[in-house]
């Protein structure tokens, strides 16, 4: 096996692998980081959630590019979200596995099912 062949082979291999791995880098990485930031901003903007905290990001007017994975864009709530204390006080049950969860959970820690939210809160998918 000549040196030239090895180099060319390696070069091709590297290019192919980069192309194959590309979706992992573009999809989960950036979009997920973006989504996490938005969740954080939304939580902070909730009245009473973190008293005294300043909105560094204005969640309402942030232009959100649709995440590559979710079809629905983030629906910014029009109604003031319930306080964090109120949420953690109410007790619910997971509709899929029946495990006891509190209302501030978005996903069931037992089976991973999406938990419905009643109190007029956001129904946006931030998966």
């Amino acid at each position: 096996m000549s040196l030239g062949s090895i180099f060319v082979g390696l070069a091709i291999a590297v290019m192919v692998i980069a192309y194959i791995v590309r979706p992992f880098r573009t999809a989960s990485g950036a979009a997920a980081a973006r989504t996490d930031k938005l969740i954080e901003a939304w939580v902070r903007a909730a009245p009473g959630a973190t008293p005294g905290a300043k909105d560094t990001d204005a969640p309402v007017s942030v232009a959100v590019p649709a995440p590559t994975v979710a079809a629905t864009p983030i629906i910014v709530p029009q109604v003031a979200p319930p306080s964090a204390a109120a949420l953690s006080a109410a007790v619910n049950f997971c509709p899929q596995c029946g495990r006891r969860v509190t209302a501030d959970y978005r996903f069931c820690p037992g089976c991973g099912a999406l938990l419905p939210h009643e109190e007029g809160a956001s129904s946006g998918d931030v998966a």
Partner: protein
Amino acid sequence: MVGEIGTLLIGLSLAVALYTAYAAWRGIHLSAAPVTAALGKTWLHSAQNATNALTALLGVALLMLLLAFLTDHFEISYVAQHSSTVIPVYLKISAVWAGQEGSLLLWCFLQALFAALATGRASERARPLVPWATVFLSLTTAFFVAVTFFLSQPFTLLPQVPLEGRGLNPLLRHPGMIFHPPALYVGYVGLAVPFAFAMAALITRQIKEWTAAIRTWTLIAWLGLGLGLLLGMRWAYDVLGWGGYWGWDPVENAGLLPWFTATALLHGAVMQEEKRGFHVWNMLMVVFSFALVLFGTFATRSGMIQSVHAYAVSNLGGYFLTAIAVTVVGSLALLYTRRAALKDASATVENLLSRDGMFFLTLALFCTLTLSVLVGSLLPTLTEVFAGQRFEAGPAWFDRVTGPQFAVLILVIGLCPLLGRGVAALKRLRQLRWVVIGGAVVVPVVAALAGFTDVFSLIGFAISGFAGAATLAEFVDGVITRRKRTNEAPLNALWHLLRLQRRKYGGYLVHLGVILMALGIIGTRMYPFEVQTTVNAGQATTVQGYTLIFEELKSDFVADYNTTWANVSVYRGATYLTTLQPRLNRYTGTEQTITVPALHPDLREDLYLILSGWTSDGATATFKVVINALVNFLWLGGLIFLAGGGLALWPRMENRTWNGVALIVGLVLLLGAGWAMWGMSHGSVNYGGGRPLVGQDAPDFRLSLLDGETVSLKSLRGQIAVVNFWATWCPSCVDEMPDLQEAWEAYRGRGVTFLGVAYQDSETTVRSALVQYDTTYPVGLDTGDRIAKQYGITGIPETFIVAPDGRVAYVHVGPITAAALSAQLDSLLK
């Protein structure tokens, strides 16, 4: 370096193919749960990228092999085995798939390409099935790449670089052979796509839509197989030199079997799309199509079968058998687990004499045909294993078993358009009864008048006539209906009809093609004629109304082979038809000898001449004469078949320019195929006339002499004319000039005239030759070779002695001596 990169690429492809399967599988399972759906989609996206990368990798590997051939890289063993420096470029390209390793690489590339196109550009209906289809397609590609990489490396190097390759197998130097493997592979590989989508449909329980989703792919694969089979038949006819086109060779059958099941699948799919069930049928057809594809490639490559196709004995057999077993068992198991869903979806066929019934009959017939041919192909092996004695199912067995089934199939082709849909089943039959009865009567009558009187063949002709009339009636009916609405001219209406209902009328065209092919098959199979005859040079022999005169034997050396051929003039009665040149080529590189037959095609039959052997002095030759009745209907039917398939396949494009371009390209291709079959010479040369025989009238001519006068042969009636064809550039002609002059001086004035006809010569050289040899008899130039053509001159010198009554008295080919001339003239003057 080219070879090493190629090997690396194939290895990398194997890894990528396996990754694709894993990624798709992972993606499917992650997408099932909403939490991980995004990640699942990412994995699927990665799998799609990997499919594209796989196509690129294998494409580049194939390109490297092509490059190696074009640049004569004989250090690569495969290139050295199948190429040489002297073969033309287009044959070097086709040499890429001339052997096992290269053809497997081509297969891998096509597999990857089709997988990428099918999954990447899937229609909306097919989209839900894509992930599982990717799994199956990539596993198939991985299998073939693994076989190529571990067992059949195309890029192995030779320890020493040979200066010259062995050259391309002479049997493969034919345009049919160039396109036959790629066309077949498009068919074989293409059938993996419906299979993969069908399995995906079963797994995801979405069993209703899958046939519509992959309709185009099934059609492409089916058409590719059909084209490959037709090309193979024409190649066998032109090159193999046994006078036939189909020998029920196990490898031929291996290509025919998946074509049967694919045709059944196409018809069943129509039913499924019209919501009439046939779900289980279609599933079974697609599974068996794919299994038969694997079986086909196993048959060709395992070395277990002795055939003109068999690649060198190889070790691949076991792996393919395992693959076939896994495929069939796995698919049937999957079918079994989904049987409830399938049964719900299926409808039952109530009335046989209905459209549904006819489709059911069609599918049943294709199944029985597949079974018949499969049993016949396996019979030798089975009987040897179970009964200890090997029973060879020969062509006669296959003909007898499949013939009646084909006949019923043609009948169904005719019945189907007659039986309308549902309630109006027999109404249309009543409308058209005279048309179809007419067809069923006219064709056999015409055939019988033309001499085809065997009872069974007449039945076959009647059925074909019936089916043909019914199918043509569909076209006429469509045009009439359309004209009622739009009031267009008939041809316009036909054009729009074909353009707008491509599937329906493409299908009818295919049926018409099949009916014509049936006529050709009936003619050649039921009226076989073959005879072997030995003839001396200059002698005539009569065969079936043809008179064949063996003129002479000639030899030459071309490129890398030695060729010997016989000039045989063919007459029907007294009319000259052509001069056939059957030949035998001996190739120096591969030490192979092949016979090249000469053909004279005609509407009624083909005259097929093969040079079997000859004596060393060239005075006697043995010929095999085959008369193939109606065979040109077979080829014509094949062209119409392809046209119909192409029409059905053409996508709907509103753009007029594209439609126009497509039509022109299609027509050009078909015309090209037609020209290749009937326009090219196929070993026949028209010399304008054969050499006049002794006793025949000598053709009259006018010769412009060098001294300015013109003499016609007719004006020499009452005298003996010695006509000598010669040229200054021909050494033996120049040698005989003194002899001719001597005879002229001896016999002039005794009622004998000599005429010298200079063939393809110039005036100045002729004049100087005449001066040099003191030639005084009249000599003229044969401008435009007119006289030479009349006398069937294929070489010089030739001398004809014409008696006073204008008939040929003596013919001498080659240089003549004064003594011989004197002897002949003396006997004539007596």
